[in-house]
């Protein structure tokens, strides 16, 4: 896993963005950008250069599920691995996110170890092809 990869963290709560950013830094990632909802995130992703997307689900404007669908529908960015970090914990929602093409799903409240495991798993699977 490349620790220099460019990561976009999307959450409407600045507190949560700050937490995720700090945890990612703690895990050795330093190239991190932020967006506060899907509508802000999508143009940033389309501009290119992002290797990984960590997004919340419940956000005003464009929510995380819509963002996930839009990313998967756009050929130029469709391959970006996406980790959803959200308080949405209904089985139907998790299934919906999985069907929409999410690579990992972490339910809030979470901890550093869970985040680390999920990220490692996503990239191990991608590297294995």
């Amino acid at each position, binding site marked *: 896993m490349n620790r220099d990869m460019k990561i976009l963290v999307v*959450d409407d709560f600045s*507190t949560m963005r700050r*937490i995720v950013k*700090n945890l990612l830094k703690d895990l050795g990632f330093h190239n991190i950008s932020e967006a506060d909802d899907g509508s802000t995130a999508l143009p940033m992703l389309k501009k290119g250069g992002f290797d990984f997307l960590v997004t919340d689900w419940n956000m005003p404007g464009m929510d995380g599920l819509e963002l996930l669908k839009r990313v998967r529908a756009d050929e130029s960015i469709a391959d970006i691995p996406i980790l959803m970090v959200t308080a949405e914990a*209904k089985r139907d*929602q*998790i299934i919906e996110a*999985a069907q929409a093409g999410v690579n990992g799903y972490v*339910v809030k409240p*979470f901890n550093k170890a869970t985040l680390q495991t999920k990220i490692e798993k996503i990239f191990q699977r991608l590297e294995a092809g």
Partner: protein
Amino acid sequence: MSEEQQFITEENRRRVAELHAAMESGDETRAREAFAAMGGEPDRELFEEVGAITRRLHESLTNIGLEDHLVRLAEDDLPEAQDRLNYVITLTEQAANRTLAGVESSVPYLERLQERSEKLLDRLQSRADTSDNEELVDLIGQIQPYLRSLGRDGRKVSERLTDILMAQEFQDITGQVLGRVIHMVREVEENLVDLLRITGERLGEVNPRSGEAPKGKGGIEAEGPVLPAQQAEDGVVSSQDEVDDLLSDLGF
């Protein structure tokens, strides 16, 4: 049975006869009109009945002095309740950000402390290895455990700082829960304003301050954090392990 509720009346007999005659004669337009006339009456009755109920509701509200109270509720109390909850979100966000800033600024100090003690430890060790001065070697032997403990304790403090960092997650979760309550209060406010408009001569007097009513998007939507009381409900996962099991069932 009162006259109002009676169905078999002279009027209805006449209408049925008219419809029958029109259909027998094959007159499409006349038949349609006759049919429409039959359907129109119950609607008018319904509207009149709703109107009467609304008037009675208005009179009742006014008589017991409730209308003023409801107007106050819609104009002042409910918007104020939303302000208060928003204020709680703002305050908790500020507090969480102050805590996070404290954690973030502590990390470099801690790292520097660990790095320096690490380097000093190495230098002292190589000095001890090459020195003939027993007193100095003895002194170095006494200092080394302290420097090692700095590294160990530093790691513990670092773990605690991560705990403090993670604890600030409460602001997101409580913020989302309060957001949903604010949304609900706004809906109550809007419905109350509509009710007061319908019942009163105060039409147009009551001004809801908040924005549009929420629109449903259909399909699967975000529902916000699951509360402890909801965790036992069907269809809600109660741990990350359950999420992982579910995804693994789906081939993840």
